[in-house]
């Protein structure tokens, strides 16, 4: 309720009494010394009612008249200093709402104050029913939203936590059909394709192609990699050492080896090549010429691809239908043989391999499609 009232009272003593009374009544009382003072702040104060202390100058009748001239509908209540019914009725006829009698007390002024504030105009109220309905609807909507969000969040969390994780695909079909070499980088896989004479860089997560580098002057049939270079073996038996820059700039070339290698790898110390038709593995010096150190006979059935790391040589053998592990010191000794389930496909032909961080990567041809996949290194 709007509770600002204006009190016109010159007497300091009466003011003190009235201040206490109106404070106790909960009124926000604005005091003025006289009518002029009251009128000067009337617009600013915009009181709900005016209380006039009687017995001061100008008389209450004049103050009442002037106040009603400024604000015809404002309740004005003279505070009489003695009980004088005739005067009270006279003031009420002149427009006063009511008159308070002396002594001015909280009990005496309470009904007048409350009636005056109630009279301050038409009671204006929002359609509280509709407002409450809207608020209730809004609150329910918010509660429903949070409930749904919580439920959905819990469901999602539970789904993520308890549902079996979708297995990450371990094999990827390639948009070319004749992969010949594979190299694993930090977050990408580089595959050479002899038919399209290109180097394809794939994102390691989804195997999307990031970059294609054309190799118009050679047909790559094997690829090996070190920390700072890669080697590409051509159909003519020449192995090119290339830098790992944007264009794979050629750094050196070897003489043409015979038989032409179709697999190659670098174990960190020596360079290894293999020829699948001859079934031979050649250990070479890592220099530009890749000079031959020793040739070994593959001890398995058929060598289709070879790779190595700093511990073992790894061979894909389609006759043994598995992955053969050979010793770097004695490649003619099979350390272990692990069956590869991918050989269930009779059309699969593994043509390239790479070893990186305990994972063996394969690339090959499966019918008319190129395929890349990886397996954890056998224990």
């Amino acid at each position: 309720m709007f509770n600002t009232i204006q009190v016109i009272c010159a007497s300091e003593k009466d003011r003190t009494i009235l201040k206490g009374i109106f404070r106790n009544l909960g009124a926000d009382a604005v005091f003025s010394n006289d009518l002029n003072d009251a009128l000067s702040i009337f617009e600013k104060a915009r009181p709900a009612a005016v209380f006039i202390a009687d017995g001061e100058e100008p008389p209450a009748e004049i103050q009442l008249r002037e106040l009603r001239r400024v604000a015809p509908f404002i309740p004005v209540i003279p505070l009489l200093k003695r009980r004088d019914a005739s005067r009270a009725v006279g003031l009420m006829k002149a427009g006063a709402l009511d008159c308070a009698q002396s002594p001015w007390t909280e009990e005496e002024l309470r009904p007048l104050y409350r009636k005056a504030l109630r009279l301050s105009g038409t009671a204006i109220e929002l359609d509280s029913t509709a407002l409450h309905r809207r608020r209730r609807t809004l609150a329910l909507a918010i509660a429903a939203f949070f409930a749904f969000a919580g439920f959905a969040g819990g469901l999602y969390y539970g789904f993520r936590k308890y549902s079996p994780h979708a297995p990450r695909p371990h094999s990827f079909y390639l948009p070319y059909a004749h992969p010949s070499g594979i190299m694993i980088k930090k977050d990408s896989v580089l595959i050479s394709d002899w038919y399209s004479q290109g180097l394809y860089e794939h994102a390691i997560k989804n195997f999307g192609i990031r970059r294609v580098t054309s190799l118009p002057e050679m047909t790559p049939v094997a690829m090996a990699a070190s920390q700072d270079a890669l080697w590409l073996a051509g159909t003519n038996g020449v192995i090119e050492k290339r830098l790992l820059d944007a264009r794979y700039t050629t750094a050196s070339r070897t003489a043409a080896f015979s038989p032409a290698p179709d697999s190659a790898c670098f174990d960190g110390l020596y360079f290894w090549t293999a020829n699948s038709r001859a079934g031979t593995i050649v250990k070479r010096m890592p220099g530009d010429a890749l000079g031959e150190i020793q040739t070994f006979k593959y001890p398995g059935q058929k060598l289709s691809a070879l790779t190595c790391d700093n511990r073992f040589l790894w061979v894909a053998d389609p006759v043994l239908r598995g992955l053969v592990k050979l010793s770097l010191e004695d490649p003619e000794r099979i350390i272990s043989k692990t069956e590869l389930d991918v050989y269930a496909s009779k059309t699969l032909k593994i043509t390239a391999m790479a070893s990186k961080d305990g994972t063996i990567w394969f690339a090959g041809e499966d019918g008319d499609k190129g395929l890349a996949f990886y397996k954890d290194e056998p224990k």
Partner: protein
Amino acid sequence: MSPNRTDTLIPAIIKTSLDLPPLWGRLAFLSPGEAELVSHFELPEGKVLALTFELGRASFEDLRARIKKALRDGDGYYNYSLVFLDPAQSELLKAAIAEASPPLK
């Protein structure tokens, strides 16, 4: 009483006894036999009052009435139902009301 019409109601002086100073209030309803009085002064039911007020051009002094019922509203004002006691005064009142009331069409 309609709160927003309070200051348009007829002011009246209320005498309760010869020994006490008169009180005041407003007449919320007036008929030749009954009236309703609004005042912030508390009076007991059954008490006889003398009302003085003006109605149109007529003045009434010391119309005797008894408080039939007293009800206090939420603001602390009292609504008194009064019954006029003097038939002669009621007749005068009836004439004044007839004069003050707008003619029926």
